[in-house]
Structure formats: structure tokens, C-alpha cells
């Protein structure tokens, strides 16, 4: 079976040990976790966690069932891209001099990046997009000289119930 990235969203109790228990499950059962993102949600005392998991359909099914079994997890679902909006945020710091600055700003404009910090020798861009487009931005800026990348990991929201 082919391996690919899946996005899993879980509503969890926000208690001592919750994230520990989630991440422990991935390590213990050898599920490949690409990113995990947790934050407050609309219900007090609960959090929503978005996880990106690599594996085939069987791995994914096991992963969702094992997560569902955790006492911390209230609901869990595998979100496909048709029924959800998925975004990641990245900061990309590029070394810049007078000659290269224009080129960087052109890329930033075309790719919908925001300049969040500017110094004589560097530009820091922020991009919020799906992960593929972030990869694209990185590829475009790479030849110019990237000094630092910080990516948030994916967050996803279900739409079209």
C-alpha cells in the first residue's frame, strides 16, 4: 500500500499529561508523526490537536483507532482536503543585500508573503499557506540564501459538514 501524509484532527481533554500521552502513542506504535499542533478551542477545558501522519491506509486506520481509545481523546477524524481547510505558517529569514533585496521582495509579493522584519542584511518573511506552497517559496529563496526557517506545522479545520 502506498504511503502518504494524512491529516488527523482530535478534540482532547486539556489535562496534565494529554500531549505526552498522544506523542507517546506515536512513538510506541511506530506511527510516523510529521507534525503535531495543539491549541485552545471553542470549548473550555478542551483543546484541538492537528496531527500529520505518514503511512498507508492501514497505518492510518490503526492510528485513528488507537488515538480514539485514549481517554484524553473525545473525537478524532481523518480530514481529507475536500472537507477541510489546511494551513501552515512559516517564517523564512533570507540574507539580503542591496542587489538581492528587490528580487526577494518580488518573490514575496508574487507568493503572498508578508515582510515581518527588515534589516540591512536580512529580510524575514511570513507565509501562511498550504505546506506545498511553503515548500515552493523555500525553493525560490534557497538560491539567494536562507538563514533560518521556522514552520508551525499544519492546522486544519473541518468545513462542509
Amino acid at each position, binding site marked *: 500500500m502506498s504511503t502518504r501524509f494524512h491529516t488527523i484532527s482530535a478534540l482532547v*481533554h486539556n489535562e496534565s499529561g494529554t500531549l*505526552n500521552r498522544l506523542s*507517546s502513542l506515536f512513538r510506541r506504535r511506530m506511527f510516523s508523526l510529521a507534525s503535531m499542533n495543539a491549541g485552545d478551542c471553542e470549548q473550555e477545558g478542551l483543546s484541538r490537536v492537528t496531527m500529520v501522519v505518514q503511512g498507508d491506509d492501514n497505518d492510518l486506520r490503526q492510528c485513528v*483507532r488507537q488515538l*480514539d*481509545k485514549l*481517554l484524553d481523546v*473525545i*473525537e478524532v477524524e481523518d480530514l481529507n482536503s475536500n472537507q477541510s481547510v489546511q494551513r501552515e505558517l512559516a517564517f523564512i529569514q533570507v540574507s539580503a543585500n542591496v542587489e538581492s533585496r528587490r528580487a526577494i521582495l518580488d518573490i514575496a509579493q508574487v507568493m503572498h508573503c508578508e515582510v515581518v522584519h527588515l534589516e540591512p542584511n536580512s529580510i524575514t518573511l511570513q507565509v501562511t499557506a498550504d505546506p506545498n506552497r511553503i515548500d515552493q517559496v523555500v525553493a525560490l529563496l534557497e538560491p539567494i540564501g536562507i538563514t533560518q526557517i521556522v514552520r508551525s506545522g499544519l492546522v486544519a479545520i473541518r468545513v462542509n459538514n
Partner: protein
Amino acid sequence: MESLVRHGVDTLFGYPGGVVLPLYDEMLNWPQVKHVLVRHEQCAAHMADGYARSTGKVGVCLATSGPGATNLVTGIATAMMDSIPMVALTGNVNSWAIGTDAFQETDIQGITIPITKHNYLVQNVSDLPGVLEEAFYLANSGRKGPVLVDIPKDVFIALTDAQFPETVGRRGYKPSAEINPLSFERAARLLKEAKKPIVIAGAGVIWSNTSNALRELAEKCDLPVISTLLGLGNIDRNDPRSLGMMGMHGEYTGTRAVQESDLVIGIGMRWDDRLTGKVNGFAPNAKLIHFDIDYSEFSKVVTTEVVVPGDLAVSLPEFLANAEPKTNPEWWAQIREWQKWHPIVIPQDKKFVARHVLDKLNELTDSNAYVSTDVGQHQMWTAQLYKFKQPYQWMSSGGLGTMGFGFPAAMGAAFANPGSEVWAVVGDGGFQMTLQELQTAVENQLDVKICLINNGFLGMVRQWQEMFYDNRYSHVSMGSPDYGKLAEAYGVTFFRCSSRDEVEETIRQARAAKGPVLCEFLVEMEENVFPMVAAGASNDNVINDPALSQATLTEATK
């Protein structure tokens, strides 16, 4: 303490220490709860486990912070692997000191995350009643399991007006997988069409108290029933439809029958690797039906034709009602033929082997005793030869395979079932891991009998070295103390037996004796357990007992 009494806990197993002093002080005010002072916390967990396995109730153990808590770990992991209802209470340092590397501080919540069904660190005393209520509920509902509650010292001391909640439940917790009404018809249709159906029934039948439904199903549809290692007792082994255990050291008949069958019905079991052998070669001609309470067990190991989710207490009677009566005379004729040619061999020559002891133990106790084991050859021989009649009679560490489990587990059963006959069958390796509990047994004048199979080896490891490592024995020779002197030192009744002729008399005397009894059986050193399927091999490749006749072996390869 009030929480324990609310949950009908009459016995807990523990060991005091600095941070649990407040609880131990309070204990003196609650004479209705018996506290058993163990000699090592691991055994407190195993005793709670034995208590649970022999009663179906939640076992409770208690330890102090740091090393006390970490000593529970093997016992908790044992209970987790076998889905045993247990509540483990641990003390921790004062809540303001947590995270400072205080004396005897350890992150037991973090340590036990992968080996508990759930665990808690109680930070406010007002949460304590609710957490304890929830802990007992979680441990004993759905697929059961151990729950740990870590309580800092200041929380033990603090007073609270908080009441126990009137109802208990946890958002998002589904004790059992949802019943699917269609699954019964689908499963019944497959059963109707099958010519060679067979049931493999696990411990789920025991914990859901559905032995009667299993027996009725077997009778109604004329089904052979295999019990998994942990499922022994889910059907009376003397029932003509019971085939005993299958797999790595199961009986040839069960293993072969599954390979030949066209429908395997797994009920409350999880297709363990010791049972399936190489999964690719497992039951090659069969469709599979799987009953389980835990959705995550479906398709985890094998691909199933029909899954029947839900608590067996609901699903099994429902399936029984849906299934049409049938008979399978040709299938049974074949099975009887296999049975005839492939019994578990009790050697008739001069050699004195463990099988002589266990066969006799079964006979003299009329298969009625509570029996526990450690892990290894003696465990497999006991599983093969003891004809368990009922659920909750058998205690063995199946999943984790914990040496040293047998003796404390039997003690837990003896505390839970006063007046009953309880035997711990142990090897010389495992017994030396937890024999310090002899003192606990003596102090309580506990009626527990130890059947020590002493072959001077770690027998199962030695068997593998003989068979798969070219007879190169590496660190498997096991020295022992003089058990007679050891028993005398502890004040335990002792019998030693070194020949087959003395077995009966030894067991008779042991049965008549009061309090803890240690029987040492000095058996042949290099005996192997058969039949055997090598680890990773297909169940087609059963290695039969060489003592079986040539005619048998010819038949076996037919």
C-alpha cells in the same frame, strides 16, 4: 479510604513510605479494609492482579513515591498486556516540590503512560473523590485495564468537603465498541455456509461472563472451541467440544484444525503472535469473524471477513440467537482423528518429568483449584495439562510474560478466596525473582501452595538454545539455594520429591497442610515442550513430540 470502601475493596496490597504516611495513618481507622504488607512493591501489583483474575473484581495496590512507584511498573505492565482491572495508588512528593528533583521524586505518571489504560496526577484535593471514582470506573469498564492515581503528599493531608460524584462518566469515553446489528446476520450466514468452522475464544469471554453463551453456541452449532492461553477456563476443558490451546505450544489438534478450517470465529481475543504463528500462513483456507469490545483490535493483525463489535455480554447472546443450528459430523470425525494420534505425551519410562507432576496435580485437585504460573516450560505444561473448568480459575502472565508473577498472583487469589485451594506452579528461575514474599505468606498464614518445578535451568530459554542455537548453552544453568533450609528459615511447610512414585503422596500431604506450603519437584533437567511451532514459522510447521509413534508422524504429514 472512603473511596476504597465505596468500591467494595476489602483488601489492598502495599508498602509504606514517607509520602504515603498520611494514608497509612488513616488506614488504622478503617479496619474493614485489610492491608497486606508485601516485601517488594512489584508483588503488591502482582497480588492485586491475582486478586482481580481470581474474582473479576478490581485489584488495588499502593506504593510510595520514587522507588516504591517504579517497583510497581512490571506489575502494572503485566496487567496492561492482559487487560486486568487494577487501580494503583502512588504517593508523590508535595505538589510544590514536583519538578525540583526532590528526595524520592519520580515522574510516575510519565513513566506509566504507555502501560496504563489511563493515569492521573491529582493536584487539588477537591478533585480527589472524583478522580478515584473515575479510576475505578475506567479500570473495570469496557476493555479493562490498570489505572494509576498519583497523589502528592500535601493532597493526602488536605481536607476536602468535595463529595463523590453521583454519576461517573467521561466525555469521549466509549467503554465498548458500538453494536452493529447487521454484523450478526452476516456472521450467522458465514457460519451457516461453513463446513469446517472453529471457534477461538479468549479472555474476553471470561471478563464479560459469557461462558454459558459460548457453551450454548458450541452446542447449537456443533463447534469445536479452542481457548487462548488467557482464555483457559472460558469453556470446561472436559467439555467434549473443547480442544484446549493452539499455537506455539498448543495442542496439535487445535493448530491443525485452524489451518484446515474454512471459518475461524475469534471471540474476545486478539490474534496474538504466539497463537497465529506467521500471519501470512495462518488459517489459509478460512474466512475470519472477529468479536471484540475494542475497535482497535479489528484488522490490527489479521484481515477479517466480518467484525462483530461490542461487549460480548450483548453480542454473543445476540449472535447465538441469529445462528442456525447445525452439525458438522465429517469435520468432527477429522478432528477426533487428529486428537487420537496427537495427545500431549505423559512419558511412561523411568524419567521423572514436570508433566508427571502437573498431570497428577490436575487429577488430585479434580481440576478445581485456582492455579497460577510463572513463564516458561512449566507454564506451557500447566496450560496443556490442567483441565480448567471455570472462568477466574487461571492466572498467568500471557502478554508480558512476566517471570516471578506466579507466586504473588497466587497469594492475591488466596487472599481473595479464603478457604479455596490455590496453587502457584513456578520454575526455579521465576520463583527466585519473588520468593521474598514467603514471609508475607507466613505472616498471614495464607493457604497457598507452591509447586516448584526445579530442573536447574531456565528451561524454555535452554530449549531454544538447544533447538535454535546449536546446543550452545549460554547462562541458562540456574543454581538454587537449598529450598528445604529456605522454607525452614521462613517457617514454611516443605516437601521435596524426586521421583514419579512420590508425586501423589507429596501432593496429598501438601493439600492436607495448612498455611503456606512449598513442594520442590526435582525433575529431569533437559526436557522440551511439545508440540512446538518455532517463533516466526507458519502453523503448518508443527514440531511434534518425538515420543509420538512413527505412525502418528506419518499421519501428521498426510
